[in-house]
């Protein structure tokens, strides 16, 4: 039954993907199908709650089958052409990238190892016991989103988050799962495959596989592949949404516009503090508008990306009877002590080193170092290529990275410690630390696809191919 539920989720995602376009790589299909599928499943669960229909396997199967048939029906003309696209390519020796296969084998074995751990142990982390897994289990038991525990403040902190993550737990519980940890593995695979497919678009399989390997092994992120916390799934959506948006702005391939907008919508459907990424995405889309003057695209992207935030805020206010906006101290002003403390942590996170209980190198490895190193190399290249060429190179990625990071920093700076019942140092060592995951795929995407890196990977590929 659980397998059937997961297949339905993938099929829903696949039907949405095929509605957008018929041309995807296998990695894109694998990654985006799940992210879109589970995102829409939770949206359906939200809508069922609004109209007062209780969740059950039969209700979810009915909704899924109806949705898949409706989407495929609306798209049947395009689907009829699929068989022409599905011709088996002829593969010769020179088409086989042995380097990528070698890295893939190591990656697959380590992924297998961490998945065995993930699926063997039940969730035991404080946050998932106190919140996410509990919400998912009780949602499945009671068949509603607004579970009875809200009445007694027993829902936990995650009860105020938008429902994507805990509703995905509820989804697998409804289909008979004993624990929800299969969801963690599916999110992790989606993170890796969407990242791989995006990097491969620019620099080929060797570099894409190597950087996917580096992304996967980012130590703290890797440890979350065996936990049931929301930070890694959030990273999967930020990675998919941001990278698809970058590719859309660069290559103008229609499918990436829709993928970017939909994934960005789910970024805010999984956590509201990810609004910093939505804002950064809207900024680069707005800058693009200044060049293209394409009102329709800009408005569509903005509307899709922001709608979940509005939906959830209204639900919180009207049905739960609370809001998320009271945890900030907007009158804090400039507090030197707090700023110094936070900057000390940021330095440790980005450049390694020790601050409090944080050892930056231990957490994120080389990820941010490679990013800053490549940034430096490209700045040096200004002498050779000229300012214009270098500034144009992945400017959207850099803008997105630095703007979202600055807003993320400000968000934490403004947090009211009394409301959060935790000192800022503790918040930096827990929440901020885990939120940093979202920046790793962005940093590695830039590091692998910038001008200098592209030049390097062309040389490697030429050598590998004997040119």
């Amino acid at each position, binding site marked *: 039954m659980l397998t059937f539920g997961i297949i339905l989720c993938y099929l829903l995602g696949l039907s949405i993907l095929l509605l957008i376009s018929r041309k995807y790589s296998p990695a894109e299909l694998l990654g985006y199908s799940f992210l879109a599928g589970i995102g829409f499943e939770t949206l359906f669960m939200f809508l069922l709650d609004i109209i007062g229909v209780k969740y059950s396997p039969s209700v979810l199967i009915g909704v899924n089958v109806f949705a898949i048939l409706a989407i495929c029906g609306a798209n049947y003309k395009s689907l009829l052409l699929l068989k022409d696209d599905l011709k088996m390519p002829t593969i010769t020796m020179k088409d086989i990238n042995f380097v990528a296969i070698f890295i893939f084998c190591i990656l697959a074995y380590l992924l297998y190892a961490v998945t065995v751990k993930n699926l063997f142990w*039940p969730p035991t982390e*404080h946050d998932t016991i106190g919140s996410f897994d509990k919400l998912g289990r009780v949602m499945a038991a009671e068949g509603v989103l607004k579970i009875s525990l809200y009445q007694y403040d*027993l829902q936990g902190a995650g009860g105020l988050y938008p429902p994507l993550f805990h509703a995905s737990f509820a989804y697998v519980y409804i289909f008979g799962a004993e624990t929800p940890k299969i969801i963690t593995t599916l999110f992790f695979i989606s993170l890796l495959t969407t990242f791989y497919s995006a990097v491969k678009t620019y*620099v080929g399989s060797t570099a894409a596989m*190597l950087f996917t390997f580096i992304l996967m092994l980012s130590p703290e992120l890797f440890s979350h592949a065996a936990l049931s916390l929301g930070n890694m799934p959030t990273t999967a959506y930020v990675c998919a949404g941001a990278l698809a948006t970058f590719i859309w702005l660069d290559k103008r391939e229609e499918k990436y516009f829709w993928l970017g907008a939909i994934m960005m919508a789910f970024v805010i459907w999984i956590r509201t503090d990810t609004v910093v990424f939505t804002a950064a995405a809207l900024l680069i889309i707005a800058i693009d508008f200044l060049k293209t003057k394409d009102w329709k695209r800009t408005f569509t992207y903005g509307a899709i990306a922001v709608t979940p935030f509005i939906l959830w805020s209204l639900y919180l206010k009207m049905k739960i009877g609370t809001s998320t906006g009271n945890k900030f101290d907007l009158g804090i002003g400039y507090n030197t002590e707090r700023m110094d403390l936070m900057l000390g942590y940021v330095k440790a996170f980005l450049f390694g080193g020790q601050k409090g209980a944080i050892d930056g190198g*231990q957490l994120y*490895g080389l990820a941010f170092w490679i990013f800053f190193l490549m940034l430096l190399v490209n700045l040096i290249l200004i002498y050779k290529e000229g300012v214009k060429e270098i500034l144009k190179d992945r400017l959207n990625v850099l803008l997105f990275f630095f703007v979202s990071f600055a807003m993320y920093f400000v968000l934490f700076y403004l947090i009211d410690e009394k409301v959060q019942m935790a000192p800022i140092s503790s918040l930096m060592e827990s929440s901020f630390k885990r939120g940093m995951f979202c920046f790793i795929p962005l940093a590695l995407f830039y590091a692998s696809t910038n001008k200098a890196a*592209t030049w390097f990977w062309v040389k490697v590929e030429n050598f590998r*191919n004997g040119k």
Partner: protein
Amino acid sequence: MAKQHQHKSQAAAPHKKTSSAEFNSFTYLLRNFIVILVIGFLFLSFYKMNEKQGQLPELYQEFQQLRQSGANQERQQELYNEIIQLQSDTSFLKSLTKGYYWAIHDMALGNLKQINEMKEKIESGQMKSLTLEDKLSYKVGVYPLLKYVNDNTPKDAVILLPPGDSLLSNTSKWNFIYDPEWVEYFIYPRLCLATGREKEHPDLLKRVTHVLIVQGRGYDKLKYEVPLDKRQPEILLPIDHAPTETPAK
């Protein structure tokens, strides 16, 4: 920019220009093998570089054991020197790559080995098959107590939890037994209330049916007296009447 486009297209489809007539399988394999060797060498170098650092917890554990037993002074000194040497090694590259060693060696392979050993023991009959409850008991120390709560209360029970002061919160033995959001996960559909937060939920306070006593704390919340000599440190008791027979501890 044109150059960049050229680079991109070459990288995305690097083999397109090589005609099959020119293609030499042996050279192609050799060149691929060389790239694999370079990547493999880098990978192994990082791994080996951190191997000693990764053994630090094991060395420390051995040192502590020897120190407690007072045996083998020579080995103790040897271990001490090694630990000091490893701790003082703060080279930049090691500090950035030691996490990868941990991720591969401990997180992935270490756990895989541990789980496979458990499965082998189960298959050979040395260990019984683990249920979800067994695994929870293994990972959450206080789970048997919470299971006891479930087994001894009706589904509509409301449990008053012990106070979350330093006596309970400073030790991992009791996990988060004082935290109602955490406990609720294990006892749902029963409800629970934290001692000290009764005023926030007067409706729930009125409905309290049981008091969970931990480390002898909570007897003052009962509406009846329990003689001092009959008080057990850990027990679940009805709030308003003494149990007809003493429940199992």
